[in-house]
């Protein structure tokens, strides 16, 4: 708890591990083109947990794809000081592999020797509280467990920066709460830098050191705010709810002001 608070307090001073500067992204050409992102600038400090909130279609997923290198920006620069892991909206587990093999694949693809993989995969499954479930195939697991395996696989990439694209959107509220705990736990235990995209304002406040609001048409950052609330936070607590209400109002205002 104190660690997170310290990290949150140091945001202004710490050197950014990730620096996005005036980035724009245009899809298509000429009359058919869509401006997905316009003039987006964002610095993220090492160890920081940043949540990005916006309506669907505001370009938040596009921004993550750019950071992950899955797509290239049309303009602007990005400096990414460390390797990046990605957690998708869907668990995207490979159905022909067991949970353990899914995690081990990430280890394999980053060059870990075969004899070390199984043990490490089991450790990672244990880290997301799935010990004993390694031999199950994805379809034998619940939605929440699948997303835990995806989290373990994400950790297996051993990247200091982790991007999460609405990874809990499809889960029921209770499972989602547990996964919030899980994610917060690994974030602290491993000193990760996390950028977490969501359309749920309370979720953003529940998790983030800092909440970044994005507006649509074109996608841009309209506001950001540090969240000094102590951890662990509870999504339904009055503190979180109050902040969520005020940030939601701000997002609506800013959105309209910009669109005119």
């Amino acid at each position, binding site marked *: 708890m104190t660690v997170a608070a310290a990290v949150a307090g140091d945001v202004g001073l710490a050197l950014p591990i990730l620096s996005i500067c005036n980035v724009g992204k245009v899809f298509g050409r000429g009359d058919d083109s869509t401006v997905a992102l316009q003039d987006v600038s964002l610095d993220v400090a090492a160890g920081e947990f940043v949540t990005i909130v916006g309506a669907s279609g505001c370009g938040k997923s596009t921004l993550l794809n750019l950071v*992950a290198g*899955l797509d290239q920006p049309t303009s602007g620069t990005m400096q990414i000081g460390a390797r990046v*892991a*990605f957690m*998708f909206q*869907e668990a*995207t587990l*490979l*159905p*022909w592999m067991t949970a353990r093999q899914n995690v081990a*694949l*990430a280890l*394999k*693809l*980053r060059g870990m020797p075969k004899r070390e993989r199984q043990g490490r995969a089991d450790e990672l499954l244990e880290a997301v*509280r799935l010990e004993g479930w390694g031999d*199950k*195939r*994805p*379809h*034998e*697991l*619940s939605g*929440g*467990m699948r997303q835990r395996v995806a989290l373990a*696989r994400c950790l297996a*990439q051993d990247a200091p920066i982790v991007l999460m694209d609405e990874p809990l959107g499809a889960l029921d509220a*209770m*499972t989602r709460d*547990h996964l919030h*705990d899980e994610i917060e*736990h690994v974030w602290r235990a491993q000193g990760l830098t996390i950028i977490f995209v969501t359309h749920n304002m309370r979720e953003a406040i529940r998790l983030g050191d800092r909440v970044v609001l994005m507006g649509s048409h074109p996608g841009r950052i309209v506001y950001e705010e540090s969240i000094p609330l102590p951890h662990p936070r509870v999504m339904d607590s009055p503190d979180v709810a109050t902040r969520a209400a005020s940030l939601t109002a701000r997002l609506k205002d800013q959105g309209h002001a910009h669109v005119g």
Partner: protein
Amino acid sequence: MSADGSILTPVVDGPSATQADAGFVLKAWGWAWPKALAIVLVLGIWQVVVWSGWRPTYVLPSPGETLQTLWGMLGTERFWSAIQTTMIRAVIGFALALVIGTAVGVLVARIRPLRLAVGSLITGLQTMPSIAWFPLAILLFGLDEQAILFVVVLGAAPSIANGVISGIDHVPPSFVRLGTVLGAKTVSLYRDIVLPAAMPAYVAGLTQGWAFAWRSLMAGELLVIIAERPSLGANLEFARQFSKAPLLLATMLVILIIGMLVDGLFSSYARSMRRKRGLEVA
């Protein structure tokens, strides 16, 4: 923070040994009775046609007589040597088709210009009756093994290639994205993600390829008869020439049964694969 029971509730339970045994017997019965019923129906209709006197029994023998001939045939050396010749041809032909079809399929799926050039040609080849290749095959290779293999491969390879292509085409884009995120390069992307994901369509292609190979092989053995080398197709032809109707029908039954057995192997492999992936309920 404690592990939550509702999340960790097992979705499936391992059945106990006795349950498994009982389950196996039930499953075997469930598998066997529709097939037994089908066989009884076919034999019954056949028998009724024979009784109707539509054709004399020296042309259309009864099921009983045919099965008796089949039983006697199983004791002859000639029969087993015919089976051996035919099955060796089938295995070699199918193996060649497998290698060629797979290689062509991967290349066509990966290389765009190649796809535009030969994609529809492959489907065209698939619709071409393989027996239409035989006159050319005989001109090219003479009345010999190569002529048969040539046609078997041409019959089976397009189906296998199409299986590979449709398998690769239908790999979910999210899997490819995942591979990229995990740092897979072209080779590892194909080996670890794309090809395994394409397996169900590939096995469907193999199953269809086998059916085409078996048909082509029988056509070939009827047309390309090599002296002193009995085969199932050659046996059919001899039975017709010497008007041995029971032998003819018995050989046809053998051809049907072998075709179905091999198809059954492919299907059961495909089923177990689909079950493992949660695409089919056990």
